[in-house]
Protein backbone atom coordinates (compact mmCIF):
# COMPACT_ATOMS: atom_id res chain seq x y z
CA UNK A 1 0.00 0.00 0.00
CA UNK A 2 1.30 3.43 -0.87
CA UNK A 3 0.48 5.08 2.42
CA UNK A 4 3.21 6.27 4.76
CA UNK A 5 2.22 6.81 8.30
CA UNK A 6 3.31 10.16 9.71
CA UNK A 7 7.04 9.72 9.27
CA UNK A 8 7.21 5.98 9.56
CA UNK A 9 10.78 4.95 9.05
CA UNK A 10 11.56 2.95 5.96
CA UNK A 11 14.30 0.65 7.08
CA UNK A 12 16.81 -0.18 4.40
CA UNK A 13 20.02 -2.16 4.47
CA UNK A 14 22.18 0.93 3.84
CA UNK A 15 24.42 1.88 6.78
CA UNK A 16 23.53 5.56 6.63
CA UNK A 17 22.95 6.37 10.30
CA UNK A 18 24.24 9.95 10.06
CA UNK A 19 22.45 10.85 6.86
CA UNK A 20 19.56 12.49 8.71
CA UNK A 21 21.97 14.85 10.46
CA UNK A 22 23.68 15.74 7.20
CA UNK A 23 20.38 16.37 5.47
CA UNK A 24 19.09 18.33 8.47
CA UNK A 25 22.08 20.67 8.32
CA UNK A 26 21.61 21.13 4.59
CA UNK A 27 17.89 21.91 4.71
CA UNK A 28 17.59 23.61 8.10
CA UNK A 29 16.66 26.97 6.55
CA UNK A 30 14.01 25.30 4.37
CA UNK A 31 12.60 23.52 7.41
CA UNK A 32 12.50 26.82 9.27
CA UNK A 33 10.67 28.51 6.41
CA UNK A 34 8.18 25.63 6.27
CA UNK A 35 7.63 25.68 10.05
CA UNK A 36 7.09 29.45 9.84
CA UNK A 37 4.54 29.05 7.05
CA UNK A 38 2.71 26.36 9.02
CA UNK A 39 2.82 27.86 12.51
CA UNK A 40 2.68 31.54 11.54
CA UNK A 41 5.14 32.37 14.30
CA UNK A 42 8.91 32.89 14.12
CA UNK A 43 9.70 31.76 17.67
CA UNK A 44 7.46 28.70 17.36
CA UNK A 45 9.15 27.82 14.07
CA UNK A 46 12.58 28.04 15.70
CA UNK A 47 11.39 25.79 18.55
CA UNK A 48 10.03 23.25 16.12
CA UNK A 49 13.18 23.08 14.04
CA UNK A 50 15.20 22.75 17.25
CA UNK A 51 12.89 19.95 18.41
CA UNK A 52 13.40 18.17 15.09
CA UNK A 53 17.13 18.26 15.78
CA UNK A 54 16.68 16.99 19.35
CA UNK A 55 14.50 14.18 18.10
CA UNK A 56 16.95 12.97 15.49
CA UNK A 57 19.72 13.27 18.07
CA UNK A 58 17.88 10.95 20.44
CA UNK A 59 16.49 8.45 17.95
CA UNK A 60 17.86 5.05 17.16
CA UNK A 61 20.36 5.42 14.31
CA UNK A 62 18.28 3.66 11.67
CA UNK A 63 18.55 4.86 8.10
CA UNK A 64 15.43 6.30 6.47
CA UNK A 65 14.52 6.06 2.82
CA UNK A 66 13.77 9.72 2.24
CA UNK A 67 15.48 11.84 4.92
CA UNK A 68 14.30 15.16 3.49
CA UNK A 69 10.68 14.10 3.50
CA UNK A 70 11.10 12.47 6.91
CA UNK A 71 12.32 15.75 8.43
CA UNK A 72 9.62 17.90 6.84
CA UNK A 73 6.99 15.41 7.94
CA UNK A 74 8.35 15.46 11.48
CA UNK A 75 8.21 19.27 11.56
CA UNK A 76 4.69 19.22 10.15
CA UNK A 77 3.52 16.72 12.78
CA UNK A 78 5.07 18.85 15.51
CA UNK A 79 3.11 21.89 14.32
CA UNK A 80 -0.09 19.84 14.42
CA UNK A 81 0.59 18.29 17.83
CA UNK A 82 1.60 21.57 19.45
CA UNK A 83 -1.54 23.25 18.19
CA UNK A 84 -3.71 20.41 19.43
CA UNK A 85 -1.98 20.36 22.82
CA UNK A 86 -2.72 24.06 23.15
CA UNK A 87 -6.40 23.53 22.36
CA UNK A 88 -6.59 20.76 24.88
CA UNK A 89 -4.94 22.76 27.60
CA UNK A 90 -7.06 25.82 26.88
CA UNK A 91 -10.34 24.01 26.73
CA UNK A 92 -9.92 21.25 29.21
CA UNK A 93 -7.43 22.33 31.82
CA UNK A 94 -6.08 18.83 32.05
CA UNK A 95 -2.47 17.86 31.63
CA UNK A 96 -1.79 16.15 28.38
CA UNK A 97 1.38 14.25 28.12
CA UNK A 98 2.30 11.62 25.61
CA UNK A 99 -1.09 11.02 24.15
CA UNK A 100 0.10 9.07 21.15
CA UNK A 101 0.86 6.06 23.33
CA UNK A 102 -1.74 3.40 22.90
CA UNK A 103 -0.72 1.18 25.81
CA UNK A 104 0.05 1.76 29.46
CA UNK A 105 3.55 1.01 30.64
CA UNK A 106 3.43 -1.24 33.73
CA UNK A 107 6.74 0.23 34.94
CA UNK A 108 5.23 3.69 35.42
CA UNK A 109 4.87 5.36 38.79
CA UNK A 110 1.27 5.38 40.11
CA UNK A 111 0.83 9.11 39.38
CA UNK A 112 2.04 8.59 35.82
CA UNK A 113 -0.21 5.58 35.58
CA UNK A 114 -3.23 7.60 36.65
CA UNK A 115 -2.40 10.23 34.05
CA UNK A 116 -1.96 7.57 31.41
CA UNK A 117 -5.25 5.95 32.35
CA UNK A 118 -6.90 9.34 31.94
CA UNK A 119 -5.16 9.79 28.60
CA UNK A 120 -6.29 6.35 27.52
CA UNK A 121 -9.87 7.12 28.49
CA UNK A 122 -9.76 10.35 26.50
CA UNK A 123 -8.37 8.47 23.52
CA UNK A 124 -11.26 6.02 23.75
CA UNK A 125 -13.68 8.93 23.92
CA UNK A 126 -12.06 10.50 20.89
CA UNK A 127 -12.25 7.22 19.02
CA UNK A 128 -15.92 6.87 19.87
CA UNK A 129 -16.61 10.47 18.88
CA UNK A 130 -14.87 9.94 15.54
CA UNK A 131 -16.56 6.60 15.00
CA UNK A 132 -19.98 8.13 15.56
CA UNK A 133 -19.19 11.12 13.37
CA UNK A 134 -18.02 8.83 10.55
CA UNK A 135 -21.20 6.76 10.84
CA UNK A 136 -23.30 9.90 10.36
CA UNK A 137 -21.58 10.99 7.16
CA UNK A 138 -23.49 10.82 3.88
CA UNK A 139 -22.89 7.35 2.48
CA UNK A 140 -20.56 8.40 -0.35
CA UNK A 141 -18.42 10.60 1.87
CA UNK A 142 -18.36 7.94 4.60
CA UNK A 143 -17.26 5.22 2.18
CA UNK A 144 -14.48 7.39 0.73
CA UNK A 145 -13.29 8.53 4.15
CA UNK A 146 -13.11 4.96 5.47
CA UNK A 147 -11.17 3.72 2.47
CA UNK A 148 -8.80 6.69 2.47
CA UNK A 149 -8.24 7.43 6.15
CA UNK A 150 -9.09 4.23 7.99
CA UNK A 151 -7.97 1.62 5.48
CA UNK A 152 -5.17 3.80 4.13
CA UNK A 153 -5.75 3.89 0.38
CA UNK A 154 -4.59 6.92 -1.62
CA UNK A 155 -7.04 9.13 -3.52
CA UNK A 156 -6.08 7.36 -6.75
CA UNK A 157 -6.60 3.91 -5.20
CA UNK A 158 -9.97 4.91 -3.75
CA UNK A 159 -11.05 6.30 -7.15
CA UNK A 160 -10.08 3.02 -8.79
CA UNK A 161 -11.86 0.88 -6.21
CA UNK A 162 -15.10 2.85 -6.36
CA UNK A 163 -14.87 3.50 -10.09
CA UNK A 164 -15.22 7.26 -9.63
CA UNK A 165 -12.96 10.16 -10.63
CA UNK A 166 -10.24 11.52 -8.36
CA UNK A 167 -12.11 14.78 -8.37
CA UNK A 168 -15.17 12.95 -6.99
CA UNK A 169 -12.98 11.40 -4.28
CA UNK A 170 -11.75 14.87 -3.34
CA UNK A 171 -15.28 16.25 -3.20
CA UNK A 172 -16.44 13.40 -0.95
CA UNK A 173 -13.39 13.96 1.26
CA UNK A 174 -14.14 17.69 1.45
CA UNK A 175 -17.68 16.90 2.66
CA UNK A 176 -16.32 14.40 5.21
CA UNK A 177 -13.61 16.71 6.50
CA UNK A 178 -15.96 19.67 6.84
CA UNK A 179 -18.35 17.51 8.85
CA UNK A 180 -15.65 16.04 11.09
CA UNK A 181 -14.17 19.47 11.59
CA UNK A 182 -17.50 20.80 12.80
CA UNK A 183 -17.92 17.90 15.22
CA UNK A 184 -14.36 18.26 16.54
CA UNK A 185 -14.68 22.04 16.85
CA UNK A 186 -17.79 21.49 18.96
CA UNK A 187 -15.57 19.47 21.27
CA UNK A 188 -12.75 21.99 21.52
CA UNK A 189 -10.44 20.90 18.73
CA UNK A 190 -10.04 24.15 16.88
CA UNK A 191 -11.15 26.67 19.42
CA UNK A 192 -14.72 25.48 19.86
CA UNK A 193 -16.49 25.15 23.16
CA UNK A 194 -15.17 21.93 24.60
CA UNK A 195 -16.32 21.70 28.20
CA UNK A 196 -14.25 18.68 29.17
CA UNK A 197 -15.56 15.43 30.53
CA UNK A 198 -17.27 12.86 28.38
CA UNK A 199 -16.78 13.68 24.73
CA UNK A 200 -19.30 11.08 23.73
CA UNK A 201 -22.13 12.49 25.75
CA UNK A 202 -22.54 15.59 23.62
CA UNK A 203 -24.12 15.21 20.22
Amino acid at each position, binding site marked *: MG*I*HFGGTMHVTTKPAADELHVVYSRIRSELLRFARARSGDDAEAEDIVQDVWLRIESREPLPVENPRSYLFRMAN*NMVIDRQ*RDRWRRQTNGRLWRDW*TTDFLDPALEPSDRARDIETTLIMQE*EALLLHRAIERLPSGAGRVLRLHKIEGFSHAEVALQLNISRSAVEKHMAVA*MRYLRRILADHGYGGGGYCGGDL*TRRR
Partner: protein
Amino acid sequence: MPEDAILAALRWQDAIDTDRVDWSAFTAWLESDPAHNQAYDEIAQIDRLLRQRRRAIGAGTAVARKIVGHRNHRPCPSDAGSSRY
Protein backbone atom coordinates in the same frame (compact mmCIF):
# COMPACT_ATOMS: atom_id res chain seq x y z
CA MET B 1 -13.21 28.39 4.13
CA PRO B 2 -13.10 28.50 0.31
CA GLU B 3 -13.90 25.16 -1.28
CA ASP B 4 -10.95 25.31 -3.66
CA ALA B 5 -8.51 25.84 -0.76
CA ILE B 6 -9.95 22.76 1.00
CA LEU B 7 -9.72 20.68 -2.18
CA ALA B 8 -6.13 21.81 -2.76
CA ALA B 9 -5.27 21.05 0.88
CA LEU B 10 -6.71 17.55 0.46
CA ARG B 11 -4.50 17.03 -2.61
CA TRP B 12 -1.44 18.17 -0.67
CA GLN B 13 -2.28 15.80 2.17
CA ASP B 14 -2.68 12.94 -0.29
CA ALA B 15 0.71 13.81 -1.80
CA ILE B 16 2.25 13.79 1.69
CA ASP B 17 0.58 10.46 2.52
CA THR B 18 1.95 8.84 -0.62
CA ASP B 19 5.38 10.45 -0.23
CA ARG B 20 5.11 12.29 -3.52
CA VAL B 21 5.10 15.77 -2.10
CA ASP B 22 7.41 18.55 -3.27
CA TRP B 23 8.01 20.23 0.08
CA SER B 24 9.37 23.45 -1.46
CA ALA B 25 6.28 23.80 -3.65
CA PHE B 26 4.10 23.00 -0.65
CA THR B 27 5.83 25.71 1.41
CA ALA B 28 5.34 28.21 -1.42
CA TRP B 29 1.66 27.29 -1.62
CA LEU B 30 1.23 27.78 2.13
CA GLU B 31 2.95 31.16 1.95
CA SER B 32 0.98 32.41 -1.03
CA ASP B 33 -2.31 32.91 0.84
CA PRO B 34 -3.18 32.75 4.56
CA ALA B 35 -6.33 30.80 3.62
CA HIS B 36 -4.10 28.02 2.28
CA ASN B 37 -2.43 27.30 5.60
CA GLN B 38 -5.73 27.61 7.40
CA ALA B 39 -7.36 25.10 5.04
CA TYR B 40 -4.40 22.75 5.24
CA ASP B 41 -4.29 22.96 9.03
CA GLU B 42 -7.93 21.92 9.27
CA ILE B 43 -7.31 18.93 7.05
CA ALA B 44 -4.04 18.02 8.77
CA GLN B 45 -5.51 18.15 12.28
CA ILE B 46 -8.31 15.75 11.38
CA ASP B 47 -5.98 13.56 9.36
CA ARG B 48 -3.54 13.19 12.25
CA LEU B 49 -6.26 12.49 14.78
CA LEU B 50 -7.80 9.81 12.55
CA ARG B 51 -4.37 8.33 11.92
CA GLN B 52 -3.43 8.23 15.58
CA ARG B 53 -6.82 6.88 16.59
CA ARG B 54 -7.16 4.43 13.72
CA ARG B 55 -6.65 1.43 15.98
CA ALA B 56 -8.53 3.07 18.84
CA ILE B 57 -11.45 3.79 16.50
CA GLY B 58 -11.64 0.01 16.15
CA ALA B 59 -11.62 -0.27 19.95
CA GLY B 60 -14.03 2.66 20.05
CA THR B 61 -16.47 0.76 17.92
CA ALA B 62 -16.40 -2.03 20.50
CA VAL B 63 -17.06 0.52 23.23
CA ALA B 64 -19.77 2.06 21.09
CA ARG B 65 -21.39 -1.31 20.58
CA LYS B 66 -21.44 -1.88 24.31
CA ILE B 67 -22.62 1.61 25.22
CA VAL B 68 -25.03 2.53 22.48
CA GLY B 69 -25.77 -0.82 20.92
CA HIS B 70 -23.96 -0.45 17.63
CA ARG B 71 -24.26 -3.61 15.59
CA ASN B 72 -22.43 -2.81 12.39
CA HIS B 73 -18.92 -2.98 13.71
CA ARG B 74 -16.14 -3.74 11.28
CA PRO B 75 -12.70 -4.40 12.70
CA CYS B 76 -10.07 -1.90 11.60
CA PRO B 77 -6.70 -2.99 10.25
CA SER B 78 -3.81 -2.65 12.66
CA ASP B 79 -2.30 0.80 12.77
CA ALA B 80 1.23 0.99 11.48
CA GLY B 81 1.20 4.68 12.36
CA SER B 82 1.41 4.34 16.10
CA SER B 83 5.02 5.53 16.16
CA ARG B 84 5.21 9.16 17.07
CA TYR B 85 6.76 10.63 13.95
